[in-house]
Structures are given as C-alpha cells and as structure tokens.
C-alpha cells in the first residue's frame, strides 16, 4: 500500500491517489500531515505536488516540520521508497532527505508546459519500467524548480549517479534551451545516495492517461507499483 501525504495546501494529492489507485490499480491511502505514524503495511510514501502552506516563506519549508515527516524520515532510513513530486521534492530537500535546494525559476516566472526528460539510469524502485537513455515527456508546473547545490555537493551527486532525470531536447540532447528553469546540470529528478528517495519536478501523476497528457508517467509510477507487488 502507498501512502499519499496530505499537507494543508497540497493540490496534486488527489491526482496522485487517482493515478495510483484508479488508473494503475494500486492500493493507496491518504495520510494527514498531523499523523505521527504511517499506516501499517506502507510500501511506499508519496509526497504530492501543490502549495503546502501556500509555498509561503519557502516552498516546503513549513511542511517539512509536520509531525508525519518524522515517520517519513524513519521510513526512508529503513530503505522504504519515498517519491516527492514538485512540492513534494521541495519538502524532501527542506527536510534534508535529498541534497540541494529548489530555487525560483531563472526566468522568474511560473511555468506550465510539457518537457522532455532523459532517463539517466534504470534502477529499482523508480525506473525499472524504462531504460537508460529513454526520453519521457511529462508536464511541469512550478515557479520554484531551479535545482541548486553547491559545487562540491553537485560533484558528489554526479559521481554517485544520483541524477535520475534531466531536461533535454526531444532527441536527448542536453541544452540550455530545453532547461525550463535554470536547474544546475539540467537536473529534473534526483535520488538520495541510497537510491530509495526520489525528488522530481515533473509530474508523472499527470501523465497516466493518453487523453490527459500522455502515459509516460507510468514509467515511474508503474516501477514503484512493480516494486510493491514483488516485495
């Protein structure tokens, strides 16, 4: 069973739940941020997009302090898979579960569009359904998605192979033009060192039905479901 964490101001929580349960036929339940434990039998944690606490102060800065985050940290430490999309990614960075920070887009405006993404590696639990070098098309919609880390940290991230997705052209080329927010290294998705925590600016949950933004999001969410089913 997957737990979708609901913060006040989460917006894509219901969409994540819909994608996982209604479209992909997984088991999924909503968990309120004031809880201090995850439901028994949780196989994966999903931190949804949206605007927890209105994105006031800094995106994810206040949600990170919610009681449930203690349980999420324990779950992650024990190796459980945790996926944060958009605001969820920001919460994971603020909570220290992922390296770096997400800053205001370099063009200083919110951007909603489809982007192309290059899969940098195939690995459980997030990308087993795809291939290294595959190109995914997913929507982004954020004002603060510019991934930043200090030079030292960025080197470590690259050396450890922690980058899962990069913004790219349709043919996989990494370029300035295809980087929608000024992220360092065109990084769109980053893993923790152990590989069980992933933050993504793009929204896989908004690309699971052909008529509603395509189906490339299944590459990610489906991988998670496979992991849960085989575990």
């Amino acid at each position, binding site marked *: 069973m997957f737990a979708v964490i609901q913060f006040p101001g989460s*917006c894509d929580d219901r969409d994540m739940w819909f994608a996982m349960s209604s479209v992909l036929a997984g088991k999924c339940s909503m968990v309120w941020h004031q809880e201090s434990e995850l439901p028994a039998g949780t196989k994966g944690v999903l931190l949804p997009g949206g*605007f927890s606490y*209105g994105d*006031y102060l800094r995106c994810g800065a206040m949600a990170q302090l919610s009681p449930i985050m203690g349980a999420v940290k324990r779950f992650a430490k024990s190796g459980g898979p945790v996926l944060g999309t958009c605001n969820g990614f920001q919460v994971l960075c603020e909570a220290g579960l992922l390296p770096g920070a997400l800053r205001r887009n370099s063009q200083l405006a919110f951007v*909603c569009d489809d982007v192309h993404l290059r899969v940098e590696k195939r690995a459980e639990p997030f990308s087993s359904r795809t291939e290294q070098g595959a190109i995914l098309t997913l929507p982004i*919609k954020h004002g603060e998605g510019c991934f930043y880390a200090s030079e030292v940290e960025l080197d470590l991230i690259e050396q450890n192979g922690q980058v899962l997705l990069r913004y790219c052209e349709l043919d996989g080329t990494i370029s300035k033009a295809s980087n929608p927010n000024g992220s360092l290294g065109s990084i769109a998705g980053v893993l923790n060192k152990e590989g069980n925590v992933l933050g993504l600016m793009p*929204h896989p949950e908004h690309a699971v039905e052909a008529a*509603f*933004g395509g189906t490339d999001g299944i590459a990610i969410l489906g991988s998670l479901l496979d992991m849960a089913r085989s575990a």
Partner: protein
Amino acid sequence: MNEPDVDLDLALEHGLTEQEYAQIIKILGRTPSFSELGIFSVMWSEHCSYKSSKRHLKTLPVKGPHVLQGPGENAGAISLGDGLAAVFKIESHNHPSFIEPKQGAATGVGGILRDIFTMGARPIASLNSIRFGSLADARHRFLLRGVVSGIGHYGNCVGVATVGGETQFHDSYAGNILVNAMSVGIAEESKIFLAGAKGVGNPVIYAGSKTGRDGIHGASLLASSEFDETGNDKRPTVQVGDPFTEKCLIEACLELMSTDAIVGIQDMGAAGLTCSSFEMASNAGTGIEMNLDTIPRRAATMTPYELLLSESQERMLLVAQSGKEEFVCSVFERWGLDAVVVGKVTDDGRMRVSFEGSTVVDIPVDPVAASSPELNRPSKEPEDLGARQSLNLSLVESESDPEAALKALLSDPNLGSKSWVYRQYDQRVQGNTLIGPGGDAALVRVKRPDGSPTTKALAISVDCNHRFCWLDPEKGAMAAVAEAGRNVACTGAKPLAVTNCLNFGNPEKPEIMWELKKAIKGISIAASALGTPIVSGNVSLYNETNGTPIFPTPTIGMVGLIDDWADAIGAHFKRPYQEIILIGTDRFELGGSMWLAKMRGIESGRPPEVDLGYERRLQKFLVLSGERRLLSSSHDISDGGIAVALAESCFGLEGCGASVTLNAESTLEECLFGESTGRVLVTTDCAEDVLSLARDSDVPAIVVGKTGGERLKISSLNDSVLIDVSVAQLKSVWEDAIPSRMDPEE
C-alpha cells in the same frame, strides 16, 4: 464608543443620494447610526444593489429544462445528468486590478472561487478575460505582468486549473483595464447549497481569515464610481489575497457540506459581513442577531463600522444545525482556520448587532436587502453612432501584400499566441484537462465529488468582440453569445448555459445606459434563440477614467457538455491529406474587422450580421459530427478572418500545413480577412459524410482544400496565389507577438 453623528452630508459622502437618505430615515423611523449608514451605503451601492441594471437584467432569459439555479444566488447551476451539476459564474475585478494588478487580479480569482464552492461545488476550472491598453505603454506591460502573475499566484496555489480565457489590447482600456474571472465547479445535483439563514435558533458561524481594516468601501466607492486619477483619497486599502487560506477553506467547507451540519452558507465578498448576513436572512425570511465582540480580528482596536464593512478576503458565514456548532468549528480548526459562533437566527426579520454591550445596528432586513432602490436611468443613442457605423470601403486602400498583412495580423498581441500568459497558469491540476488554453473552448473532464471519473466533459469558453460591441452593442452582444456557443460546439460539446459580465462606463450618462440596454437585449435575443439561458453574471459599471469610457464589453462565458469525451474534437489540423471543409457563408463583411483596425487604422462600419437560426443549426451540426466522429479538427473563424483561422489551424504540435482555394467573388481583403460570423473550418477523412450531414442540417459546406506540407498556401479560384508561406515562419511571428513586446532584447 465615539461615532460621528449622521446627517445628510455624511450620507452624501457615503455615495448615497438625498432621496435614498430620506428613504433610510423612513424605514428606520429615526436617524441611522454611523454603522447603519455604512450598511445602507454599501447595500445600496451600484455594485451590490445593481440599481442601474436591475430592471434590464430582468429581461434576460433565465429558464431552461436543465437550469437548476438561475441568477440570484452566488452562482448559477445546470444539470449535467446522472445526478451531477455544473456551477459557474464570472465576475469582474477591474478597479482593484488597475490599482494593484497582482493582488487585484488574485483576489478577483479568490472571490469567484468562493462563489462556486459556497454552492457546494468543487471548483474544477477557471478562465479569465483580461483587457489592457497598448503594450507599447510601459504601464500596461506592468499591468499585464501583474495581472497574469496574480491570476497564476492564486489559481495555481488553490489547485484549480486555469484552462482558458481571452487577452485583448485596445486603447479604450488604457485608463481602465478589465479583469473578469470565471470559475466552474461540479456538485451533486441534490447537494447544492444556498445562502439562506434558515431555522430559528440555529447558530451563525464565522470561518476563515480574521477581519482587518482592508477594503472598507471597496464595493460602494471603488466599484461604484469612476476613476479620477488625480484624487487618491477615496481609494481604500487594496486587499492582499491569501490563496493558502482559501485552499483550506475549500477543503473544510466541502468536507462539512458532505455532512448534514450546514443549513446555509455565504461567502463574505463585497461589503463583507454586512452583505452576507443580510442576504442570508433576507433569502430565508428570517432575522439575525450578531455580537461583534466575537469576530476574529487582525487589529486590536476596530470599530463596529469597520468590522461590519471590512472586505477582508477568505471569510465565510455559515448557518449550522443547532447542536452541530462544535463539530463545525472542529473541522475548520483541523484545517488551521478560525471558526466562531457569532450569532443566531431569529424570527423577527431584523438584523440586530451588538458591540461591547450596546446595540449598534437594528434594521429590518427586507427593506435593505430586497427592496433596495431600482433606477430607471435615462438612455439615449450616442450622437456619434452614425459616425461609428459609417464606412466607405471604396475609400479604403486595398491590400497589395496579403502575406505581409497576414504576418502583421498574427504578430499583433490581439491575435498572436497567448502562451506567454497561460504558461504561467497551472493548466493540469486535478488531471482533467483534455483541451487546455489555445483552442476554441477548453474541455475538462467531469469527476464525481468522490473522485471517480465519468465520460462527461465540460466545454467552456469566454468571448467578446469589443469592437463589434462599440459599433453596435446589440449586434456585438449577439455575436459574443453566438461565438461563445460556436466555440463550445467546435469541441463537439452541446452549449448549455451562459454567464456574463457586463463591463460598461458610467451609467449616469444616457449614452452608456443605451449601450448597456442594447447589449442586454442582444444577449437576450441570442441566448433565447440558441437555447442557452443565462444562469449567473455580474455587472461592472463606472469603467471610465477622467470621463473616457471603455468600449462596451459584455463578456460571455458559455458552458457546454459532451457526454463522451472520446468524441471531442480539437482545433488544430491533425494529419496531412485530409479534406478541409468550410462550413457557413461568407458575406464578405469587413466592418469592424481586425484587418481594418490594424492595417488601415479604421475602427468603423457595421459589424457582421448574426443569423441566429442558422447559428443554432450550425451548432447542432457540429455536435452531431462529433458524435459520429466525422471530424479530425474544427476551428471557428473569428478575428482576422479565414486567413488567420487557417494559420492558427496549422499551429498544432503536428505543425501540419494546408493548401486552400477560396472563392474570391469579393475583394481580396474581404475574402481573406473579413469576419463574417458562423463560419467553421473542419477537417475530415470522410468529406462525403460531412457534406451530406451538412445538407441534412441545412448548413452550407464546401470543400476548400487539403491539409499537408509545411506551407500554408491560399489561392483564389482563378488560380492566382494569394498567400504561400512556410508555417514555421508564420508560427514564429505569432509566437513572438507578446514576448517580443514584454521582454524586448536587451
């Protein structure tokens, strides 16, 4: 408590007239208290009482078999079948947005969303119609940037997709921009909530943000008088929107409304606590007793006058079942919101308000709320109408370079791509967007309140051609209703009902009243003929600065339904080698066209005719074609004529070109750029079936060309090539229209 004594001068200062003040004294049988005067002044303001427009609005067609709730509540509601309802409304926030574009637009979005969820509906989509002066003016670049970021800031944060709208530029808006926001929500038909304070003894509960000193007299003075750029004194503090609180309010209210704890609910919009409590008591034929000492407040010292008239955002007033107050408050608290019992429902038809032990308001509800003044303002045809409508085409220089003209039109911000705008909006949240901004109408899937998907989708469009409305308000308004319906039908959806926002100048001028009356008449005629009743709306008057009014702008919001979204039709050419069919008749009408305005600087003439009988047949035909899956695309021909419509059709992701031959019995510019209404370009693999359905539907249809290639080629019947240009080139001009003006190269 030290409140000023009330006299006629003070009443006049409050925007009341001498007669109105006399009326107040008659109703009360005494001189009003300061707070009472404040209440009358807002409740009887143009913005809240609709005193100039009321008698004319009554002529609108508001009934239909599918109408669940017409005008008079927070929003209109129509049945979608299967126990579901669509709830929608459009509202203006023009003056606040001109003063502070970001927060003005943001709070406009917040206000319309509250109207939707107050009815028990989850807002699923927003649209907006925004109008500015020229982008050559730095101030209007600032205003556009601010308005768009405000709409995005609020809409994105509350998690409601912004799926469409219109963005227009014209000098008549240079001193008075327009910001109209529309929202649509979904509710269960049996669970639509109304604003009624029913049940004597039931608790009245205040929930949401604390009350501050902001926006006092926003409704009565800001929205009900003209702008005078010299005087700042009347300007109330602009409110800052708090979308996070709104999001929590939406969730808490919808959660509560799924229980049986709530009897009635009303948002505190214009005129705040005053307006909402009066409306609730008036609707239910009851009274309300309230203690102001309990109102959550931001400033330690607030007078009763301020507490009653504050327009602080993100606040709701609820009447709960007696005994459920604790439960209600606990749900709000879980969402981090203040909620307190502030009073109760009484049976004496009076509004009684106490503050620090004394009664500060004691007014009979009905005379204030329901019997507010109704004016019959004089109206007179504008003297320059003849001049507006006269156009001698033989004196207009003809078009020597149609290709250059097409590029010029596409590069105009009015016709150019609006993606600079809508890229800043979350178009995807809630996962229902089938067709987002950029097509004719947006198309959004309907989910049930429990989150389960249906095959239904709503098509939504907002439209108004302000130039047509200026040349002929009646015909312009008819054209707006027809176009909105046609846009909806182009997706394959059946147009169902209308919401409207009437943006006009100062109604005290007979010429403006004439425009308003004519526009309302045009809406009525068109809405009746097309079977799309008006279920909600808003009137925004006094849109003028230093005596210069805006072009009359009756913005039309149309909602339609498609039973199976798999039948939906997009606006762009999909594949090469498909037949292009032109539906409708070209009457070669150039009056009021974009080409005349842009290429010749002429904004006169008669706007194109609107044949409503035909329009209804056309819309039926489009819906049938969708159901039979005959069409690959369909796109309405509007501003810029067929040349622009063809170019736009080529601008899809697929980037498919086309080759078309037009029957140019007329002049070149009439044929390429004329704006005859009721025309649609469709593409198909089965032309015979389409033509035969068109014959059966009694709509003219003729094959004009084929899709394919990388160029757009338009020829005339005698084989002379009028335009032959690469789609990529056209597209880049079109895409740069706004960015090149907003972010000029350094």
